[in-house]
């Protein structure tokens, strides 16, 4: 279902690009009423389970990490007054975070100090590092509220190019296979690392909404929220029992030509 929606959105965006490409022969009409922008910004946020599972009892520490993004986009305005338009572009963006959480009876799979691969229910602390990079194509409907303000919203489609979802469990114990299994301690220096990077979904899509403010003639300040609709992990990945969604705030500057 989600995939179909995503595919549909992707097709729409492709066809828009196609129309633009076709139109390039009639340069005048294409670029009439079209504006260009380049942007740089950073994103803070995280990959959050929604709804928040009861196994995670407490977030001890959260570090948004520094994730940068670059984008080039073009906006085709429908009317001469530039009230409504459609914007698309290409963005290279990082999405990362680092968290320490207390968990109780949290199902996971770790690699023990002796190379033992153990899955089961862990009670204790989990550190997670996410550091992913994506190529993203947003397809946005844009509306100009005033000389100063534009707002926009629409779907985005991302392809994962650099991936890392890893961490370790510590200060606790894992029950081998399930809550009644053999107790395996992870104490002191003994940590149980895990790495689910290979299980990340290569395709991500979601919704994006935000606004940009005209700071100077060419300079824009923008802020936007992106919310991933499909699970961060592949369908067949069952180790993490709940879906995780990337939710990020992007802030930065744009230069409008």
């Amino acid at each position, binding site marked *: 279902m989600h995939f179909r929606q995503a595919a549909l959105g992707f097709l729409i965006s492709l066809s828009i690009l196609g129309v633009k490409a076709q139109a390039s022969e009639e340069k005048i009409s294409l670029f009439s009423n079209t504006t260009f922008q380049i942007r740089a910004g950073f994103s803070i946020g995280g990959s959050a389970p929604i709804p928040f599972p009861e196994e*995670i009892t407490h977030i001890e520490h959260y570090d948004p990490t520094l994730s940068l993004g670059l984008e080039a986009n073009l906006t085709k305005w429908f009317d001469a007054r530039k009230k409504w338009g459609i914007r698309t572009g290409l963005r290279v963006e990082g999405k990362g975070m680092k968290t320490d959480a207390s968990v109780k*009876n949290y199902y996971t799979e770790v690699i023990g100090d*002796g*190379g*033992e691969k153990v899955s089961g*229910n862990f009670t204790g602390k989990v550190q997670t590092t996410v550091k992913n990079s994506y190529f993203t194509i947003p397809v946005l409907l844009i509306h100009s509220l005033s000389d100063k303000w534009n*707002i926009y919203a629409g779907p985005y489609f991302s392809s994962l190019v650099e991936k890392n979802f890893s961490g370790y469990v510590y200060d606790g114990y894992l029950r081998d296979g399930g809550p*009644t299994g053999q107790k*395996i301690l992870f*104490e002191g220096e003994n940590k149980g690392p895990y790495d689910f990077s290979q299980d990340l979904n290569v395709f991500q899509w979601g919704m994006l909404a935000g606004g940009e403010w005209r700071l100077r003639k060419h300079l824009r300040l923008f802020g936007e929220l992106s919310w991933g609709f499909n699970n961060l992990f592949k369908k067949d990945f069952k180790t993490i029992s709940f879906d995780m969604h990337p939710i990020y705030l992007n802030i930065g500057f744009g230069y409008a030509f």
Partner: protein
Amino acid sequence: MKSTPLIFFLIVSLLISSCTKDDVLNAEADIITIVVPSEILKAEPVIENNRITVRVKSDTDLSQQSPEFTLSEGATISPKSGTTLNFTQPQLYKVTSQDEKVSKEYTVSYIKSEITSRYDFNHFRLDETGKYHIFFEQNERGDNIMDWASGNGAFALTANDAPADKYPTTYADVSENNFAAKLITRRTGSLGVMFKKPIAAGNIFMGTFDVGAALSNPLAAVKMGVPFEHVPEFLKGTFKYSQGDVFVQVVENAQGELVIEEFENGEMTDYWDIYAIFYDNNGGKLMLDGTNRFTHENLVAVAHLDQQDAIETDSWAEFKIPFVPKAGKTVDPQKLANGGYNISVVMTSSVGGDFFKGAVNSTLLIDNLEILYTD
């Protein structure tokens, strides 16, 4: 739309702020402690994941015992804690978690027979997960009076779906209905290599193997000792031994990194090992482990195979090793009768197995083990 960032921050803070949820019901179903009258105890009760062994004095009336339990938070037990039951046979208890989603059965055994002194390794069963073999000893009535411990529980974590006969500790056929303990040094697979613990030597010993501690402190996980009411003199038995082809060891290189070295064609020699320790258990409170088995001040006597006798042989050979008393140590007969001394016999297919050193497929067969004693 100015409020978008604000909304976002609200959401994020909702998600990541201290969303403490202490009302989650507990999912565990463990017996944490067992309380029995201390005057009947010979040793501290041993609680494992599915069984509890209580060694009691020989004059204890087993027909009416009312052990009390403490459980995982919120868990319940049936029959109830403190119920009087007849422990001439092991009793089953069922513990149900607070969230009522899981339950676990425990076998609680009171054992008053002291351990025997002859071990033929003819009795074994699969562990409760069905993955590996456990040898055990019976008395004349056919009651289980001791499980032999081994490192199989830790190997199970790396073994994926290896059959029981591919574990480091398993059995060998000697003749019809006659078996021997078979200890083999095994590779631990690619993950074992990654963590510089490339091999697991076969081992078997009297005591308990604490799988929970095995990852953080392998030496301390090997808890050696069961009460023994005689003064041991000799350790004897029969064996077969063959060395593996590829000797593996972990050494520190010039950069201080651990690297795995492999030697072929007999460049390095592997040996098997057997030893027995006899020590004062401080009234049932002390268990020696891999860190202090030869050094603890409570040791009374130690029997250890001379390495030059750890020969390769493909026909059954005999060994007989004297217990060498520690200087200045005497045995108190009263304490001895009350189970105040522990013994443990320990065997391995690679003498350096504790430090992940040995030849892959070194194979030791042990049979007809006996502790000779004076009284």
